[in-house]
């Protein structure tokens, strides 16, 4: 006989769902509006979505204040877990979404933006990701993950080019496989511990003294494979370049930042307690993953002919770099992860937005991809300001001080050094040097080469005021990041520390 359900509404603490609900309601509202009156202009949908994201953001600010005072909040059958990590990650997710959404206000018409469903799916993605980070329940993580992923597959496909369909199919199929890995891994852990709550699994395992270490490792291996896919660790990274190439630059930039931070948070929740409890295998494996991911993707990025594809590999490399935080596992490292990603968001936003404004409607004859390096030849002569901006973003990506990513890199290296991972720090540092080469390659094309006279390329054909504003904001953030670092760092550190990481 089942016990009668007896749950008090207060203990449910439904307010913990507020941020995600706002996004979901926003998505539904858009759909409803479309039902009532179809054929509305995309600007309306963009701004509507922006409003909901702003509300979402507002609720997060509220949570942040609450967390700062009272600490972690549980809710909804203790499934929701609003701790510092959740709030930080949601900030990055929502702010990232708000920065990328206006990129749909292009001056050229693109198929997908005229559909309201696009915006609804976009908001669903955000909601899914928010769920993912604010729980330690494996089921909810799975649901959040799949919600966001399925929406993203569709968003990519909506770009309506043969390459984007190919990208979507590839992403989708591999995603399905990763989902299989995830569920199998979760199943193994559930079998071992009888729970799907990460903290309970941890408690059971350590009470048990990790006697079934072999099975634990099998479960962790499956989960690692699954998140390896999401975080694009080599060799689970193969989707990334193709998906970046196949989707629009705006979408690619979004994929490079927002879903990844969610996966990082889950990975932190999942793996760090294992690393901390002395599962050497995981530490070694992660170490190998970090080093291989950074190095291999850097090496592959060297040989790319397309800027967007190069940036795809670069994103993989950055993800690998940040993964180091999971091995180091100190508060400093985990804070560095968020700092790095916040800085990376702005720079990468700028870089992809720059690609986006240079996008032609269709490929010219003889072109294999949209953003070949040759297109940028001598850009400084024709569009000096744009070239300078792009140069800034590339320098920041390369980790040249005082631009944004440098500070993240500095802090992460500092964490590695303080954590005793000297060799890792050196490998990370030297990888930055390799990476500098391909970022420089674009700078070389833009600044050092003469423009190709025959091409008569037009830059910035896709630019509009909102795109320019976004790029300007990204550039300002990138250049003056040094002033933002301290408040950010203090904020992040206190949140991470108070969440017990």
């Amino acid at each position, binding site marked *: 006989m089942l016990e009668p359900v007896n749950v008090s509404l207060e203990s449910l603490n439904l307010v913990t769902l507020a941020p995600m609900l706002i996004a979901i309601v926003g998505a539904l509202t858009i759909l409803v509006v479309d039902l009532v009156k179809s054929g509305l202009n995309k600007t309306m949908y963009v701004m509507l979505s922006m409003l909901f994201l702003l509300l979402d953001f507002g609720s997060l600010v509220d949570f942040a204040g609450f967390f700062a005072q009272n600490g972690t909040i549980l809710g909804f059958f203790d499934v929701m877990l609003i701790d510092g990590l959740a709030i930080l990650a949601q900030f990055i997710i929502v702010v990232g979404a708000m920065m990328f959404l206006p990129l749909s206000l292009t001056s050229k018409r693109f198929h997908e933006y005229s559909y309201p469903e696009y915006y609804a799916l976009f908001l669903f993605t955000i909601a899914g990701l928010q769920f993912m980070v604010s729980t330690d329940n494996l089921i909810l993580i799975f649901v959040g993950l799949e919600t966001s992923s399925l929406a993203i597959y569709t968003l990519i496909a909506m770009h309506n080019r043969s390459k984007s369909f190919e990208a979507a199919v590839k992403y989708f199929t591999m995603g399905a496989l990763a989902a299989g890995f995830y569920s199998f891994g979760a199943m193994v852990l559930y079998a071992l511990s009888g729970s799907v709550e990460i903290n309970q699994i941890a408690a059971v395992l350590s009470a048990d003294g990790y006697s079934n270490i072999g099975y634990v490792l099998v479960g962790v291996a499956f989960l690692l494979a699954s998140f390896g896919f999401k975080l694009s660790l080599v060799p689970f990274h193969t989707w990334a370049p193709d998906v970046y190439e196949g989707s629009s630059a705006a979408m690619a930039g979004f994929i490079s930042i927002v879903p990844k931070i969610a996966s990082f948070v889950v990975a932190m929740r999942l793996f760090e307690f294992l690393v901390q409890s002395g599962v050497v295998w995981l530490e070694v494996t992660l170490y190998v993953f970090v080093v291989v991911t950074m190095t291999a993707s850097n090496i592959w990025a060297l040989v790319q002919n397309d800027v967007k594809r190069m940036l795809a590999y670069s994103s993989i490399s950055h993800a690998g770099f940040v993964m180091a935080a999971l091995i180091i596992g100190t508060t400093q490292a985990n804070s560095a992860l968020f700092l790095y990603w916040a800085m990376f968001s702005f720079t990468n936003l700028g870089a992809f937005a720059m690609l986006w404004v240079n996008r032609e409607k269709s490929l010219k004859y003889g072109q294999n991809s949209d953003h070949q390096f040759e297109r940028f030849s001598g850009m*400084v*002569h024709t569009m000096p300001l744009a070239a300078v901006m792009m140069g800034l973003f590339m*320098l920041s990506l*390369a980790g*040249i*001080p*005082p631009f944004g990513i*440098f*500070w993240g890199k*500095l*802090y992460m*290296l*500092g964490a590695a*050094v*303080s954590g005793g991972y*000297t060799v890792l*720090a*050196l490998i990370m*540092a*030297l990888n*930055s*040097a390799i990476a*500098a*080469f391909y970022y*420089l390659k674009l*700078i*070389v094309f833009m*600044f*050092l*080469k003469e423009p190709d006279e025959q091409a008569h390329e037009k830059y910035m054909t896709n630019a509009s005021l909102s795109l320019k504003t976004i790029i300007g904001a990204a550039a300002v953030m990138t250049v003056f990041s*040094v002033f933002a*670092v*301290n408040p950010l*760092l*203090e904020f992040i*550190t206190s949140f991470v520390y108070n969440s017990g990481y």
Partner: protein
Amino acid sequence: MLDNILSILIFFPALAAMFGFVVAKDSIRAYGVTVAAIEFALSLFLWYAYDPAVSGMQFMESLPLIPAFGISYLLGVDGISLFIIVLAAFFTLIGIASLPDMKRMKDMILTLLFLQMTMIGVFAALDAIVFYVFWELSLVPMLYIIGAWGGPLRIYASVKFFLYTFTGSLVMLVGMLFMAYFYHQATGTWSFSILEWYRLILPENIQLWLFVAFFLGFAIKVPMFPFHTWLPYAHGQAPTIGSVILAAILLKMGTYAFVRFSLPLFPDASVFFMMPIAVLAIIMIIYTAMVAYAQEDIKQVVAYSSVSHMGVIILGTFALNVEGISGSVFLMIAHGVVSGALFLLVGVIYERRHTKMMSEFGGLASVMPHYATIFGVMVMASVGLPLTINFVGEFLSLLGFYQQSHMMTLLAGIAIIVGAIYMLAAFKKVFFGEVTNEKNRNLPDVNKRELVALIPLVIIAIWLGVYPKPVLGPINNSVESIVQLMHEKAVTEEAKARIPDLTSTIVINEAKEETK
């Protein structure tokens, strides 16, 4: 004004460069010259206001930048950095003033102004991270200058320059983070302030590792053998102005950093690595001098000669006594003046003939007598003739190192022989003999614009050779305090013995000052 003069010196050119985007192309040179002149005047004012009797930092500025990680915007100059700052301002001025007409003049001038910011920043920074920021940032304008206005291999050269130095400095960055970590361990707070670090006494084995990490960054920048190969490419491909700034100022960053970081932070490691580094320095001196002798391109001769001279600077630095370090710091300035001038001179002929191959020339002394005279003066300064600026530095550097090792100094002293060989051979090939190439028959002598740059350099080269005291005095005071610091910090017996104790000397000097 005086409280913030360093900030003004650093950011004035950068701001001016930003405003410069608005200035019309035909007026940009005047704008650039004016800005650089103001900057130079400011730097002279800095020199004027600098109290030479004080050995410590002056005009300090402090502003917490990232207090959570101990990074602050900390500036200051002492006798060691003061003159390089003045030199940087000076070279930017004459560099812009003597700029030949070229394509995209505006970009060049604005880039130079940005470069000036980074150069002055490096030498004024007292916080390791701020130092690192300017250190790395200086690569960017230089990359552009070499890459956009350079010769046929310019892209290869500029990218190589960038990546090589970048790689080295990343290792250095890890070293800096380590240093901060140890500071954190010792005191419980984060700090990247060099002055704070000075107070930290590290065990020897840690010193050794950190020394190596810093060394890699500095050695590539200097560049020391065997990390020097980017330099000939960079110089060979760079436009005149690029080579001038690179040789005169940018290379000094490495040697300056040795004095600022390696010596006072790691006195025991400095003693430990003294001999290996001296061996490298001697290889640099002799080997690159021989390579310079084999060159066919006059600019490459000067480029390799730079490496050779940097060897003497390194040697003087690692003499670890006042004479040697003062000499090496002085030689930094001297080499800046002389190699800068030589690159300018090569630029003069390149602009006329668009070739730098020595075989294309010959007998120029009769065609361009003024040019030959100035070139001759600089060649003599380069080979270290007494009463020229280089001699003071080389003499003191070698003299200093002689205390540490007789044989090494004897070998290093070969510098004065091999230096004469390649320089005189090159001078002979270009200027002496009959005019064989018809194209050289009617070359115009140096014009006013070029003289504006060259005459001051000649004057400096001789003035400071005859009367180095205004520069050597402040340098000496600051170096004395560094050497004393090293002596006090040294852990091992050997280091204590190798680094002289100046307590008595300093007391005497203070007494002297008081009686004055």
